[in-house]
């Protein structure tokens, strides 16, 4: 009951304050736009706005950041689906299946699913966040140390080979290549230089964003360009159909699972929305009865990724508000906003600043509802961008990607990484390897290695220590089990000819029909 009164009071506070509504609207639009444009993301917007928060009330500022968070993790989904350009890293797994769906003339369904699932996941996470705050955070930091995080990532990686490749072995080689790329830079254990070839640019490691822009957007331009030249290009049919209720109902388990996983990833320090999307995608593959369809236009892939990244937003607010522990970059900025106003997030904020907390909760709830409404409009409008002939659109994609890769850190080396990844991605796709697998390997490898090294140091280099921790042990055994099971009984991969990329073949098949 108290929950409802608090919610109502937050609702009244938000909607009776015109200035708060202005910030709400600006945050919503800002997050959408910054989320959608590659190279900038909600973090860029957050950093630019940080000095101005000194002139706002703490309630307005925190509310603004939470709205940016909610719309920022959704914003990149549309570009990921329509053009294979994930606007933000959180949306990269959305492109795995979203773009092939566009190629098959099912863009409306993909965008519709992304919108609906983002809104549902986000709303559900806002509700759970309101109900569960302090206990969850305390439990999470005690139960999940580096050992459990490593085990969780290992568990996730164990299915990565099933995504998008033409055979299980090519899937594994793709993932291993990703893991190899993740080792470039300074090693997390002793600060050794690996594969840096004397370049201090490479010491920082290969950045993830230019890599996904190259593997997805640039490689796609090459693939379609080749078709244009050889006369095999067919424009995708424009599909405006929203997914039906029945389609959503069939995926209800996937949505629930992605929600739990996403929310939980948000709560864990250092995991956050991007990892949430990737892990949730992996689980969708694991539990599906036909994992071989993933990476080739499976609606469930979009559902898993977009439900999870928005579910993470509510989760991430919990350790911040309950314990003063920001788990990611955007929540760290919110921490900065609190401190700028001389407040310290923690149990005291929950008691002393009820208005702030509830206005924020209500704003996150409302932002998710608005995403659904705006997103529905978007489904009916942005999809028409596909009518632009590809030969006109390709230069724009290349330009946008180049600017995006450069704007990230203002380093020209990132542009070279992007084009390198573009060429590599093109060649690998033509030979039946999976760029999705590589990307999974890079992002999970980086975090997994860091967690593994920390675990070993914490356990004084006793590897059996993993098995004295029940959560870690279960996850590791389950991960090993998946790998063995896949080797004994490989998933049925489609019997298409290897030379053509899996994605494109499926696409051609659909456009012809």
């Amino acid at each position, binding site marked *: 009951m108290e929950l409802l009164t608090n919610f109502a009071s937050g609702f009244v506070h938000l909607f009776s304050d015109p200035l708060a509504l202005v910030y709400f609207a600006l945050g919503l639009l800002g997050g959408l736009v910054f989320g959608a444009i590659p190279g900038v993301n909600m973090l860029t917007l957050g950093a630019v706005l*940080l000095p101005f928060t000194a002139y706002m009330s703490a309630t307005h500022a925190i509310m603004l950041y939470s709205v940016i968070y909610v719309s920022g993790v959704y914003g990149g989904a549309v570009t990921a689906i329509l053009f294979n350009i994930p606007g933000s890293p959180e949306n990269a797994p959305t492109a795995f299946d979203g773009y092939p769906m566009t190629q098959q003339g099912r863009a409306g369904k993909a965008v519709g699913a992304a919108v609906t699932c983002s809104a549902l996941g986000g709303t559900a996470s806002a509700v759970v966040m309101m109900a569960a705050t302090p206990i969850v955070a305390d439990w999470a930091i005690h139960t999940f140390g*580096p050992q459990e995080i490593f085990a969780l990532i290992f568990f996730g990686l164990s299915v990565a080979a099933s995504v998008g490749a033409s055979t299980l072995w090519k899937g594994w080689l793709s993932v291993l290549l990703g893991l190899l790329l993740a080792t470039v830079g*300074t090693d997390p254990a002793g600060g050794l230089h690996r594969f840096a070839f004397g370049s201090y640019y490479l*010491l920082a490691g290969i950045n993830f964003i230019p890599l996904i822009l190259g593997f997805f957007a640039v490689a796609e331009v090459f693939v379609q360009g080749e078709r244009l030249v050889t006369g095999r290009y067919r424009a995708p049919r424009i599909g405006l159909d929203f997914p039906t209720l029945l389609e959503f109902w069939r995926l209800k388990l996937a949505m629930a699972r992605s929600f739990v996983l996403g929310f939980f990833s948000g709560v864990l320090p250092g995991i956050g929305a991007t990892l949430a999307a990737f892990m949730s995608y992996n689980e969708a593959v694991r539990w599906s009865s036909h994992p071989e369809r993933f990476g080739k236009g499976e609606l469930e892939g979009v559902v898993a990724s977009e439900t999870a990244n928005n579910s993470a937003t509510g989760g991430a607010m919990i350790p911040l508000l309950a*314990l003063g522990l920001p*788990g990611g970059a955007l929540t760290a900025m919110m921490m900065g906003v609190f401190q*700028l106003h001389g407040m*310290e997030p923690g149990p005291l904020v929950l008691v002393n600043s009820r208005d702030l907390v509830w206005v924020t909760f209500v704003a996150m709830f409302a932002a998710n509802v608005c995403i659904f409404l705006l997103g529905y409009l978007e489904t009916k409008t942005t999809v028409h961008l596909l009518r632009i002939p590809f030969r006109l659109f390709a230069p724009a994609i290349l330009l946008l990607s180049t600017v995006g890769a450069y704007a990230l*850190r203002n380093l020209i080396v990132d542009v070279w990484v992007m084009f390198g990844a573009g060429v590599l991605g093109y060649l690998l796709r033509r030979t039946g390897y999976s760029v999705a697998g590589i990307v999974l390997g890079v992002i999970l490898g980086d975090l997994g290695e860091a967690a593994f090294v920390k675990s070993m140091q914490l356990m004084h280099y006793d590897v059996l220590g993993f098995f004295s921790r029940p959560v870690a042990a279960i996850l590791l055994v389950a991960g090993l089990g998946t790998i063995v099971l896949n080797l004994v009984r490989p998933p049925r991969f489609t019997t298409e000819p290897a030379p053509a990329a899996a994605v494109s073949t499926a696409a051609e098949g659909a456009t012809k029909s």
Partner: protein
Amino acid sequence: MMVLRLTLVLLLAFAVPAGAEYPERPVTLICPFPAGGAMDIVARGLSEAMKKTFPKPVAVVNRAGAAGTIGNAEVVQAKPDGYTLGISAVAVLTVQPQLTDLPYKGPDTYAPIAKLVNLAIVLAVRADAPWKDGDEFLRAARQAPGKLRVSSPGIGTILHLILEDLKGRTKVDLTHVPFRGNGEAIPALLGGHVEASIVHPGEIVPHVQAGRARVLLVFETKRDPLFPDAPTARELGHDITLGVYYLLIAPRGTPDAIVQRVNQAARAALEAPAFVTLAKNRGFDIDYKGPEAITQELWLSYKTFGPIIRQLGLKK
């Protein structure tokens, strides 16, 4: 305030006859760490406060990567015309060049402009830990060599080197666990995955106030008013008084008049009420030093860290 304005007027008057009217256009301030981090907040706060003390805007550009060396290298290689300046930290300038070959080395390979802020360093444990102060902690560690695990925010950070310095001087074996920043290390401390953490006061104060953490030892010249019960390392007979500091730099060869002009503007900005509030809320101690004094401090840090780095075998 009056004196300040007068100084500014005089300085402007002095700069004009020198030929170029610096600054004629906006100045770029390269921050070698990501947007939203501690240094970025200082950079943006300073840039905002300098609006009143500097005639052209100071635009903060983030060029993050490789522990700050990428952005820093860009500053030292820029044209020394005063239009590319950098904000940097002691570790980027005095530790990193002793680890790797970089386009800069000692403080004579760039032009230090002004020291801005200082961040103290402390050793913290959970509130329910059995040790009441640093002495008890070190004694417990001596009895069980290597058993106590202490986090740092990363390899080669000043906080890591302080831990190693402590280990070396006390001959106590502590297991060092580097995290990716204290944003990850503090949850590990509170969650019971490490026994102690090396942190900045601003990072741990909220948890001390909430009764979840306790500070056992401070690496300052005198006791920290925030943690009056925690002895300094010096009190325990280990002379470790190192902090992290942020400063402004320019490429070597930047005309002295320009260095002085920026220095004066920055000095005035550090006194602006908005910046003072920002520093107080974020746990930075404003600690202005002019070009000569900061150059000396950099040399001191550079020479202190050299032996520690060699001893640790960190040099590649």
